[in-house]
């Protein structure tokens, strides 16, 4: 496995798959930056996709602004090797993923113009396996 971001310590080596089809009730608004990239679909976002998005944004912005990554791949996903019979216990961890629900804000940008943020998020969205859109801050009351 390439050295992408994964947890340093875990309580359990493997975990159940769990329910996926829910809408985001937390982490679904821009909290730190001025603009955000919001997921419109749910998925298990692999750690390499998050890293690819970060690299794409930083390459485009060239040290301009500050990028916030709002998701962390803390879910181990196991996969049985090819041509293996069923059984014999749960397989080894194949990759680490972040649980992304529709509405989750994946990345945020601060200190850049809307035009630059749009350009950066367009490139990041190309690296994501799901549909995304750029959002701003919500109305204050």
């Amino acid at each position: 496995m390439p050295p992408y971001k994964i947890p340093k310590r875990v309580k359990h080596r493997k975990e159940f798959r769990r329910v996926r089809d829910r809408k985001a009730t937390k982490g679904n608004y821009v909290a730190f930056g001025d603009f955000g990239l919001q997921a419109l679909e749910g998925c298990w976002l692999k750690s390499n996709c998050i890293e690819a998005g970060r690299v794409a944004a930083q390459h485009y912005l060239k040290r301009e602004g500050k990028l916030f990554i709002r998701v962390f791949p803390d879910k181990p996903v196991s996969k049985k090797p090819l041509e293996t019979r069923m059984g014999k216990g749960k397989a080894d961890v194949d990759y680490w993923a972040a649980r992304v629900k529709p509405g989750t804000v994946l990345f945020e940008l601060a200190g850049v113009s809307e035009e630059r943020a749009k350009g950066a998020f367009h490139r990041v969205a190309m690296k994501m396996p799901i549909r995304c859109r750029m959002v701003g801050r919500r109305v204050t009351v």
Partner: protein
Amino acid sequence: MSDETHTLKAQARERTGSRYCKRIREAGGLPAIVYGHGKDPVSITLDTKEAVGHITKGEKVFELVLDGSDARQHVLVKDLQFDYLGTNIVHADLARIELTDRVDVMVPLRLVGDAPGLKTAGAIMTHPVAELELNCLVTNLPSFIEIDVSKMQAGDVIHAGEVQLPKDTMKLLSDEDGVVAHVVVQAEVPDEGEESEVTDEGATPEVVGEKKDDEDEKDG
């Protein structure tokens, strides 16, 4: 806030709950509730287009007219609920007020001017605090507070306590030490900066409480 207080027409709704609210939204209504001033809370329905149009422009105070009664009541938008994507307002909380009341509101900040410090290589403008909580008269509610950053050099900070409020009668309730504008010069990153955040540690994380092989032998 504009000087004019807009009027919102509302209908009282007898049936409450998510199913009925969903039907109201499908019919172009916005479920809302009015409470405060020692009176019973009343569930109402607003016209979505009218209400959301004003709220998104920054209006906070409205004159509410309930269908079937001539009584007019000033209300303050106290809270908004959004759908999971944050696109649509799905519910509004309105608090009864008098125009002589003092209220606590959150006011967004707007940075104006070009900071010369941003011309320094690697400098960016951050504003960890994007809105301030104020106590002010209902008639003096600002839509936003402007902060002039045109004199900020690299490393300069503006705290909430230094912000010039639009009226002297306004009181700042937010933490005075909160940073509302900061020109940060980011640390020099090597050329391979795009790859620098990647962890080079082993692919498997440490399992908390797991016995290592040496310990197993000792135990056995």
